[in-house]
């Protein structure tokens, strides 16, 4: 077969970054599932979202994804399947997702730099963003959170137990 002088270039992959994004989505998904069971602030936020509502975070156009289902007053992590969701929060590309998910920039900055788009009811996206902020408060130390958040979520002593539960039970077992 004759080789073309100017051949088409099929899309490449950013394997390492995609792998890290998948891992962060997994930790976030499990973490949110756990936080929705143990953190009263997350529970209170979620009360306004209807049961059966699905929320997806994904990397456009066909990258990793994380889907959550509002069920029994909490969130259930459904994995990264290509499920339809009532609310989809999309990173425009892998680089943007990598920057936000590895805490190089915060969510507000991500929105301000047009790296994230939202399909669905914006009010629920705001609720979800606040839940993610609370989770970040548990997952990351405050010197990181201080860089990426406008205000640190309060982390009193009782929340340290929630943090331990999320790390010890939430992420490994989704409890």
């Amino acid at each position, binding site marked *: 077969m004759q080789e073309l002088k100017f051949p088409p270039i099929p899309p490449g992959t950013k394997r390492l970054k995609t792998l890290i994004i998948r891992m962060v989505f997994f930790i976030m998904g499990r973490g949110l599932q756990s936080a929705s069971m143990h953190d009263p602030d997350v529970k209170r936020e979620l009360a306004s979202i209807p049961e059966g509502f699905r929320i997806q975070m994904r990397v456009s156009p066909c990258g990793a994804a994380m889907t959550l289902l509002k069920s029994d007053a909490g969130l259930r992590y459904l994995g990264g399947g290509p499920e339809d969701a009532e609310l989809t929060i999309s990173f425009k590309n892998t680089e943007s997702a990598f920057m936000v998910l590895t805490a190089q920039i915060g969510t507000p900055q991500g*929105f301000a730099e047009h790296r994230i788009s*939202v*399909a669905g009811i914006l*009010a629920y996206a705001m609720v979800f963003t606040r839940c993610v902020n609370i989770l970040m408060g548990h997952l990351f130390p405050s010197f990181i959170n201080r860089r990426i*958040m406008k*205000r640190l979520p309060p982390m009193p002593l*009782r929340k340290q137990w929630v943090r331990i539960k999320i790390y010890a039970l939430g992420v490994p077992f989704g409890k």
Partner: protein
Amino acid sequence: MNTRIPPYYEFHNPVKIISGHKALENLPFELEQLAAARPMIITDKGVVRAGLIDIVKGAFADSGVTIGAVFDETPPDSSVETVNEISKIYRAAGCDSLIAVGGGSAIDTAKGVNIVITEKSDDLSRFMGAEMLKKPMKPLIVVPTTSGTGSEVTLVAVINDTKKSMKMLFTSYHLLPKVAVLDTRMMSTMPPRITAATGMDALSHAMEAYICLQNNPISDAHALAAISLIRDNLVKAVKNGKDVDARLAMANAACMAGAAFSNSMVGMVHSLGHAVGSLAHVPHGVAMSIFLPHGLRYNLPKAAEWIGGLLLPLGGPEIYATTPQAERAHKTIELVEDLRETLHELCGLPLTLTEAGVDRDQLEAVAEAAINDGSLVFNPVEMDLHDALDVLNQAYGGEGAREQSGPSNRVLEVDPTTRTWQVHHVSEMERRAYLGGKGLGLKLYYDRVEPGIDPLSEENMVVVMPGVLMGTGAPCTGRFAAVTKSPLTGIMTASSCGGPFGMALKTAGWDGIIIKGKSETKIFIEVDRDKVTFHDAGDLWGLTTSEAQARMTGEKGTAALVIGPAGENGVRFANVRSGDRFLGRGGLGAVLGSKNVKGIVAKGGYTKILPKNEAAFRKAKKRALSYIRSNDMTSRVLRNFGTASNTEFTNNNNILPVRNFQDGRHDEGMKLSGRTLAEKHASKPHFCIPCSIMCGHKGTFEGKSLPIPEYETVGLLGSNLGVFDGDVIAEWNRICADMGMDTISTGGTFAWVMEATEKGLIRSELRFGEPKGVADALYDIGYARGFGAEMGMGSRALAEKYGGEDFAVHVKGMEVSAYDPRGCFGQALSYAVANRGGCHLSAYPVALEVLFGLLNPFRVGAKADFIAFLENLYCCVNSLQTCQFTAFAYVFEPPLTKYTPHFLLGFIMQNLPKAALRLIDFGLYRDLWSSVTGAPLSCKEFITAGERIHVLERYMNTREGIGRKDDILPPRLLSEYRESDEQRRTIPLDALLDRYYKVRGYAADGKPTDDLLARLGIEDRRAGSR
């Protein structure tokens, strides 16, 4: 002024802008350039009525272009139905382009129509969100008729889904019009007020675009130019709508501000504006004008430099150059406020939410909606629910709100006998010595009333006092105090209350009101900023508190303090209602009733209270909020489960009153816990404003929305009567509220009646554990019918008449609250010595003994020291005035207390109380008071003021004959054992009292010594009478 280059930004504005006095004439040419030949015009009736659509039609003369259709029925809020209807007309008329003529609604509708036509779907909700639209759309030309929205150059459309009561937001570059035509003829008929409101809308777009997170240098240039144009032309356009140059400049300003915010987005001013527009129907421009200075002020901590940068276009180069850099941000806000004032004077543009017709009850819902608004993401400073409520509260203001620095120091003295009033001016010495609220109220009473009077005679007075923090926006300061001589106890009583009355009185410009004398006829008193009116209340007499309140507070910005039938009929424990909160204890309602006063109405909102030292106040407030947010009790327990959360620790520790204090726990006790009530009755916050703890809740009880009963109510009307059914207790709570009766004394009295019935002392149908007859008996008390009239005298009076004093659980005539002191000796001492009688709030040591486990509940040591200290501290708290629950946060969150290991803290408190008390940091209360009043006060002076207030109240009581003989507990609590108490402990009251008197500096008979009174500067008004 620095130029900022963000690490990444996007700017997109492909709209062709045609600006000029007859710019519309180019419409046919522009359509031809867009390869369109049959446009459809979308407009509204207002535009047609103003004759503007004729100008547009006229532009097509001799053009050969046929207008396919003109739709002129666009509603004020774009809706899905309208969009779908127009789309059908568009298709039927064979149109190929759209021309929107009008304000935001017509333009948004046209954008919605474009989505439906392009996507060939009438289900708009599929495309809701950011950047969901992928296809190029039909050519859209926009002809704005207002100068504010900037919709002609924005990528946003908001369409109302009326079926789901939801506003759908669409953002996409495809929504941008192809051409915007700014023709002065289209704006010349705009009325002054709409010109002003839309101009302020444009100003808010430009300012928020400049200070919010998505700023970029190209948007900045548009924003700054827009602000300069608004500075020079807005007032001109309002004054003279025919000034075509000013009109053209404003049209350009709005357009540039639109281009700026379309690319930079907006922040909290718009979040609040969208919420108040959607829930209270405040026009968008009006809302922007109200919130803009508040939003700028709120963002000062993170955006002061950029707000200061706005001074150059807003004030002009001279003002900018002569203002020091550090003051530029404040100057910018001042100029925005000046501009608002000018517009207010020119055309009545509202300055506050009150003037815009917003009801204070709507603020909670507005705050919730605001924090879910997408704009908030781009605001520099985080805004949570409490912050939003704070800002709303500041913006609520009132008609012509004027700033007041610190307290007004004006107390109104009203005499219904003569229907006259005068003003007492609070001296600096009174303020420093008695702080405000309860303390100052007691001092004013002390100076005016002789001892020995009958509490229900015209000589008695009621003093209602908001504290210095009320209206400043400090957390948890929606409370006020009232003082009188109690008809239940015959001694002084001071009560604290939330609800809207305090704020209304304070923002009417009054630091308090004294009611003395007695009206000949039934009246209610109306307090305005400069006058008092006495209204006939003949038709209000007999109404329940909720009915009377609804009748008396029809006008916006008013709030009432009302009594129910119980107060009218002299029930000794009648309370007074403010919103859904009560001046509960001691029978204040009966005192007002004895004066023939059904209530007091305050017309608030005239005054905006600013702290004298704003920087110090901001710092103290920030610390206060941070403590509240990080404390478990204030941020979780009380917030989620209310005060009824106490049931868990009282039942578990054997101090829950059961069957008239015959036992301390019950297997069904947890049915009354805050957690159970919250889960079972779907509780939602329902709290005082401003509040950051939010312990109050409402829930659904058998289909009715009722307040979730407080702990004292579930204790006294529930377990103490052997009843554990939340639905039943909530209903009794409602009846008490409507009748105007204190639930603690009511419950205590019922418990005595049930036990007396069991023991055969009296005959009644009331039995422990049986709800039957209770509701009827509650009404009988309120209306003074039959035996109810006797029950209305309280348990002490009943026991004196029928016997059974051993089980009449009161102190000094006031029924004891819902903590059995046999399980916490500190609480026993506190009940015995509390100035108003069986009161739990005087010191609340049960928290240290049982809830936190810091003091051994069964030891005598340390109790006297802590109770004296806490009494002093709570006198300060009730004089500031703020919520007592703040003590959990303000006292336990400072680092020394927070980070000392629990066992060590407990050891020091128990064994070295004096050292422990020296280390307690209560300075935050002092800082709040000092920053508002501007008066420096050391912590020592501050807590001494608390001591002075407590001792003055004690001294006033001792003048009535109170002494050691009265500092006693009922026989049941002193000598009876409970089944559940295996240790069979007895309260060592004498030992506790001896130590307490010593700590206090009282004589052995319990009276304050002359030395003590002299040290505290409490003067005897009648020499030699001590």
